């Protein structure tokens, strides 16, 4: 039995609930300038490990790029 989440707009399956920090590290995100939007709430890197991903969660990883 798996749980489903929406990650960056696409559906993904996870085997179990895991801390956000571990999840992102596993995906290869590397530095601390990212921000995560979790169910509409903003989480900075220092807060990621305390947050546990649950079924149905919506996650977006965001950062700033060049723009005019």
């Amino acid at each position, binding site marked *: 039995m798996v749980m489903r989440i929406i990650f*960056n*707009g696409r559906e993904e399956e996870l085997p179990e609930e895991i801390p956000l920090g571990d999840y992102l590290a596993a*995906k*290869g*995100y*590397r*530095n601390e*300038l*990212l*921000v995560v*939007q979790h169910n509409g709430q*903003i989480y*900075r890197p220092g807060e990621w490990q305390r947050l546990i991903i649950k079924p149905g969660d919506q996650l*977006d*990883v*965001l*950062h*700033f*790029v*060049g*723009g*005019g």
Partner: protein
Amino acid sequence: MERLIIGGREITSRLFLGTGKFSSYRLIPEIIARTGIQVVTVALRRVDPGKQEDDMLAYIPGDCILMPNTSGARNAEEAIRIARLARAMGCGDWVKIEVINDNRYLLPDNEETIRATAVLAREGFIVLPYMNPDLTAGRKLVDAGAAAVMPLGSPIGTNRGFKTRELVQIMIDEIKCPIIVDAGLGRPSEAAEAMEIGAAAVLVNTAIATAGDPLSMADAFSLAVRAGRQAHLAGPGEVSALARASSPLTGFLD
């Protein structure tokens, strides 16, 4: 030089910098160091795994004013959502509202822009809306709480120059709020022209980012903006139809 105050901050450089399209982010801090640019726009985007690029913020000195834009927004709600996200991410209170439905010319939707401005200004944002030049829409933006109004000079990224002078001139003359010409300026002379007729500032991105030497072009724009502002304050002389001699008109030995 009269002072320019936006959102309670004194703006010391009237050249605002857009950070898109540069060949390398490393140019940004160099340009800022060289020109003293203070207001810098950035964009917010989702990062997919394995596609993570550098974060722009790492390249912008701490004393700059960050102005995230809402690019990608197609209506007021999307713009509002992006603005809130950017603020939550620690970008501060400034936001450039940009609501666009047109993919060929990237021309803005003034009506949605006014709506977004009203909501965000009430939430304490310092709102600088990008807009299609229009006196009435400009007044509504001011009524909605805009800190400055930013009509376009020509379509984004075209380097076509200051093609909307007639409408922008009227906005400058009639609206008390600072008018900033944003988008399309391609040459320093065009930035100087906008400043000469009374624009409070200009926002330039493509003309600098796509120049052969972006650092030098940024410097050129910075000089031109100062030149134009100073000429505005110095009071240009009258334009006449007939010649007026600069040397005494008596024949030399008559």
